[in-house]
């Protein structure tokens, strides 16, 4: 038999019908394998040597090989027979276990097929090599747990067919990869830090600007433009010096906040430090997982309170979603967040991306390089409130050698320096814990929101509205 070949990704376009991906029917290209050639060669050599040496027993040993070769040659597979592969991926309906995808692979092989070599790669990491008997069709089912948010491979299927005694083999049929995009989890957050300047004429946040909708502000002499129904007759009776003096009750105006979520999608850093310098199959929780989850949670909380949220993906070419509000906008943001992927290369930019006036900027970054920190400082210098959300997972140092450990300590020292610089420049830094069951996220958010009041953030609010 010939040696196993690397199975490339499928260049063909499979048809997608709901949850099922079907590769086009193909007539496999059959080739004789080394097994056939070996049978012929061994049979002929033994027979020749047996005749030359006048040894009947050696000639007899050649017979099964020659018969096997004759059968294989007689039963050469038909080139016109076709094989079809169906891959169905559905979401697991088992509510008691962890979220997962269930897949079902059905291979319809031609009649001449004696066995099928199936190569499955599930979850992009686990490789399964199977040798199956194609009775009418080969069916393989399985379950792949959802370990990350975003785009992820569920199952990749490549196969190869074998004829009688493995004497014939089809060319490897290229792998069919089925991917799914998993939306990040949304953690309920009750309070969010507000920007220094609230914008808009309506909203759920109370500004210090006089207007409609908010709580009582003061009693003020009537001025042109004040509504008549706002006249406070009791206060007027108490305070007026002349007949023309009128006093109105003023309230604070309400306003909404604008948030800009900035995702630093250059790299996807796993919690296993050993996986930082090479492609590893098991990386644990990654920085992109945490960034997606944090951004989705903040976006959902902000839009629930009527604020406007925009999105900027630092490394993606088309990574801007303009600020907006409402349920449909939240869906748009979640889809964009789920589709965000590590890009590997930075965009070259001449100036910092534009931030809407008065917006608060949330930067989701690992701070392992300078760009996100530099942009944060620039936005802070231009008057925006900036919150850097640290999404570097807690490192696991298993299987780390001495040199990698030293490099890791150096990288973390640089990162600490960046964090200190950010804090010194008045930028809030929030650590986003990776444990889903920890209430620390909401607590940290509430602390940040409270700190804004303590700094007099509310006193400044509304000045630009």
């Amino acid at each position, binding site marked *: *038999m010939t040696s196993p070949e690397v199975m490339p990704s499928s260049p063909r376009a499979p048809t997608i019908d709901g949850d099922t991906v079907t590769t086009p029917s193909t007539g496999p290209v059959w080739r004789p394998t080394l097994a056939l050639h*070996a049978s012929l060669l061994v049979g002929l050599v033994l027979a020749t040597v047996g005749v030359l040496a006048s040894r009947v027993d050696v000639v007899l040993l050649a017979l099964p090989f020659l018969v096997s070769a004759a059968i294989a040659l007689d039963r*050469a597979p038909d080139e016109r027979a076709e094989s079809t592969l169906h891959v169905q991926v559905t979401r697991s309906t088992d509510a008691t276990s962890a979220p997962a995808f269930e897949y079902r692979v059905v291979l319809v092989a031609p009649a001449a097929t004696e066995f099928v070599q199936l190569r499955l790669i599930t979850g992009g990491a686990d490789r399964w090599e199977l040798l*199956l008997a194609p009775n009418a069709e080969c069916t393989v089912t399985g379950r792949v747990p959802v370990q990350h948010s975003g785009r992820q491979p569920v199952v990749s299927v490549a196969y190869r067919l074998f004829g009688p005694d493995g004497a014939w083999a089809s060319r490897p049929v290229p792998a069919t990869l089925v991917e799914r995009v998993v939306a990040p989890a949304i953690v309920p957050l009750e309070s969010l830090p507000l920007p220094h300047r609230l914008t808009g004429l309506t909203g759920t946040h109370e500004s210090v600007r006089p207007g409609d909708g908010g709580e009582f502000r003061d009693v003020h002499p009537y001025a042109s433009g004040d509504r008549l129904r706002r006249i406070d007759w009791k206060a007027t009776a108490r305070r007026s010096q002349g007949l023309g003096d009128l006093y109105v009750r003023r309230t604070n105006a309400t306003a909404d906040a604008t948030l800009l979520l900035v995702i630093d999608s250059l790299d996807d850093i796993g919690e296993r430090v050993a996986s930082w310098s090479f492609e590893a199959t098991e990386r644990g929780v990654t920085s992109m997982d945490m960034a997606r989850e944090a951004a989705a949670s903040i976006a959902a909380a902000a839009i629930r309170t009527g604020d406007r949220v925009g999105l900027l993906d630092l490394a993606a070419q088309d990574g801007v979603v303009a600020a907006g509000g409402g349920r449909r906008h939240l869906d748009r943001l979640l889809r964009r967040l789920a589709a965000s992927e590590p890009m590997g290369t930075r965009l070259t930019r001449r100036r910092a991306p534009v931030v809407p006036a008065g917006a608060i900027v949330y930067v989701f970054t690992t701070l392992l390089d300078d760009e996100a920190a530099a942009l944060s400082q620039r936005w802070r210098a231009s008057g925006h409130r900036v919150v850097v959300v640290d999404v570097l997972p807690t490192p696991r140092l298993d299987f780390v050698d001495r040199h990698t450990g030293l490099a890791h300590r150096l990288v973390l020292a640089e990162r600490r320096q960046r964090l200190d610089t950010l804090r010194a420049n008045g930028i809030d830094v929030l650590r986003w814990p990776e444990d889903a069951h920890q209430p620390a996220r909401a607590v940290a958010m509430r602390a940040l929101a409270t700190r804004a009041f303590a700094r007099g953030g509310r006193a400044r609010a509304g000045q630009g509205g």
Partner: protein
Amino acid sequence: MRVWTIGARARGRAPQHGPWVPAALLHVTYVAVAAGLCLFVFASPWWRAIGFALVAGSALAPTRVPAWWLVLALGLGSLGRAPSAPTFEVHGLLAGLPLLQVLGSLSRQLPWDARLQPGALARPLRRGLFVQLALQPVAALVLRDFSAAAGTVRGAALVAAVALGVMAIVLAWRARRVGAFGS
């Protein structure tokens, strides 16, 4: 869209495809059959050492040391035994060598951690059994008539050579017709 829990590290469930045995069993069977035949065929310690080296090579690096090298060595090794004696060893080799060839071909394709559906072996084994059922009685008759005790048959070598030539021509013609030698 699906909500998931970050930090889930559960491993995927293994694929379900009916009954299976580990492919390592196939490799172990191959090694056992090959080692047994080496002990069976080679009398000299040196030849046994070469045989075991071929067994180890074809088991550990099947793409570099194909199983048919060992099959050929075992077949030619039988030249060292008593000529054309109707012994149990000949029948054992007659059954063992084709089995070794099939096991070697399969183990060449499958890594040790692969999974094997027993049904996949049914057709090759059934075919091998039928061939053996036909060949073993023929071998017994031929060995009885051509054994040294029965004396030699005049012209038998010539007839055998002609039959072998015809068979080779027919096989080559058929192989060429179905493209076994490539286009």
